């Protein structure tokens, strides 16, 4: 059996800020990512995504547990891990703003011990690949946020990484650039690279990832393909309705697949937790002459609450 690109076993991380109670960022996280997979790490802000990415990138030590990249321990074998990985953290920082994009990349290339000639050649290829050729010799401080993100990505690739850790890489990109970025991610996978993509963007995860791990409050909630995950989430629809009487709401409350009916401000919110129940409820509401009916999916966080509340952490 092939060595997994990333293997995480019961990783925990507790931060102990001064004069504040300890913060559990990760608690018993396990994960295995085969080579050439785009794996999404999906969760709200503060879920522990960045903490996990940092541990795998060797820049943060776990409190307990083990993690390996291509078979090398990220704590004990940092020298073996570092040439194999590339990291892209989100945000505008992480670049020398007073230097040009090309100068930034040449510096990072040299840090990966490339020869001067290889560094220049690879820099040029990456600049073209991420669409910065026209602005490569201008200072980074003149770049838009999206351009800086593309430069971040090029920096992550300059060492020819086998495993890429991307933390919110499309933050600040316009929709077109984000779409091009996702195409690029798929190309990188086709080249045999493994990508761990931490994001809170559900659409991004669904679009590019082969599998997705839902993470919340430092715990893995689920690891599934996006399609399976989408089905799980779509079960938990909700309906906001106005203009129906209480007896109708009581009748709906008794229907199968309806988890709750909450009345407020002359209307009501109906929560559905079973596939197929939505159409039944909608039919009954229309028959009852509802003046306004709106269906929506709950937020990811709300799905987490549903999942954890209903089935514990066994998913």
């Amino acid at each position, binding site marked *: 059996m092939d060595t997994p690109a990333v293997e995480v076993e019961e990783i925990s*991380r507790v*931060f*102990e800020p001064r004069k504040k109670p300890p913060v559990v960022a990760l608690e018993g996280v396990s994960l295995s990512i085969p080579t050439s997979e785009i794996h999404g790490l999906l969760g709200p802000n503060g879920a522990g995504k960045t903490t996990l990415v*940092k541990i795998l*990138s*060797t*820049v*943060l*030590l776990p409190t307990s547990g083990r993690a390996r990249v291509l078979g090398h321990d990220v704590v004990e074998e940092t*020298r073996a891990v*570092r*040439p194999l*990985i590339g*990291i892209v*953290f989100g*945000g505008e*920082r*992480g*670049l*020398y703003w*007073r*230097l040009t994009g090309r*100068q930034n990349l*040449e*510096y*990072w290339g*040299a*840090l*990966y*011990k*490339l020869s001067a000639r290889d560094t220049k050649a690879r820099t040029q290829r990456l600049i073209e690949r991420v669409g910065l050729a026209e602005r490569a010799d201008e*200072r980074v401080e003149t770049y838009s946020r999206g351009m800086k993100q593309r430069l971040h990505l090029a*920096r992550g690739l300059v*060492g020819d990484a086998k495993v890429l850790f991307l933390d919110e890489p499309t933050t600040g990109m316009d929709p077109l650039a984000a779409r091009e970025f996702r195409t690029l991610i798929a190309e990188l996978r086709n080249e045999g690279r493994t990508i761990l993509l931490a994001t809170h963007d559900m659409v991004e995860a669904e679009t590019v990832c082969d599998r997705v791990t839902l993470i919340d409050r430092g715990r893995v909630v689920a690891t599934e393909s996006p399609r399976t995950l989408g089905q799980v989430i779509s079960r938990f629809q909700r309906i906001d309705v106005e203009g129906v009487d209480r007896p109708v709401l009581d009748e709906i409350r008794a229907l199968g697949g309806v988890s709750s009916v909450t009345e407020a401000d002359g209307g009501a919110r109906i929560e559905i937790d079973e596939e197929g129940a939505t159409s039944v409820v909608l039919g009954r509401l229309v028959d009852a002459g509802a003046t306004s009916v709106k269906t929506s999916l709950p937020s990811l966080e709300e799905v987490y609450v549903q999942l954890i509340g209903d089935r514990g952490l066994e998913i």
Partner: protein
Amino acid sequence: MRAFLAGFGIEMRLIRAAPDALIPLVTTPLFALIFLAIVRESGRPDLQPDALMAPVLMTLWWIALQNAGNMITGDRWQALLEPLLATPASLASVLLGRIVALTCLGLVSFFEVWAIGELVYGVAIPFEHPLPLVLTLLATALATAGVSVAFAAVFVLTRNAYTFTNSLSYPLYLLGGVLVPVAILPGWMQPVSSAIFMSWSADLLRASLKPPSIDDLWQRLGTVVLLGAISFLIGRAILFHVMQRMRAKGELAAA
């Protein structure tokens, strides 16, 4: 070596983009004028070469320490430290390359004092032993960088590196015999001075500007380089432990 060159190259480019790291070069001529005025007013023209060399050593040290003190902290605030540590490059080698770039540029101060001496007082630098002079300046630039790596590592642990860089300079100027030779300092200070590379540099610089032949040139030059190298190795070890501590505490990234 590649990491060293990467550090050297990036610092040169950063300075070209924003030369504020070289501000101490602005003060070099001022110190040269002050010291020259003092020795001339005291009727000691024989000390004029000493007065010219002191600002060169002070500038080298100031440039190196001031920038080294903030190098890691600055990278941390710009979110550059984590990606740097995640590369295969040695952080200490990158730092050394960056500081050597600064000290090499700091050698411009030699030409500044040469010019100011000639232009203001008509005092020429007596090039009695030009090769030892050049070698001493280069060895001093390297040793200064090595020692600065050690300080850079320690400064990461402090909240205000500026305070330390300012207050550390003056004891070093004194114990390093920058203007006043160590031989005329109080006796108890002399053993301490001999452990400071700059005291060897300062003595060699002064000797290379005077007619008598220089005793034990290679040994003394070697001592300058050796003390710098030992400091660098100590700095590298400190840096490793500081980075381990920051990895453990999650302090590599600034909020």
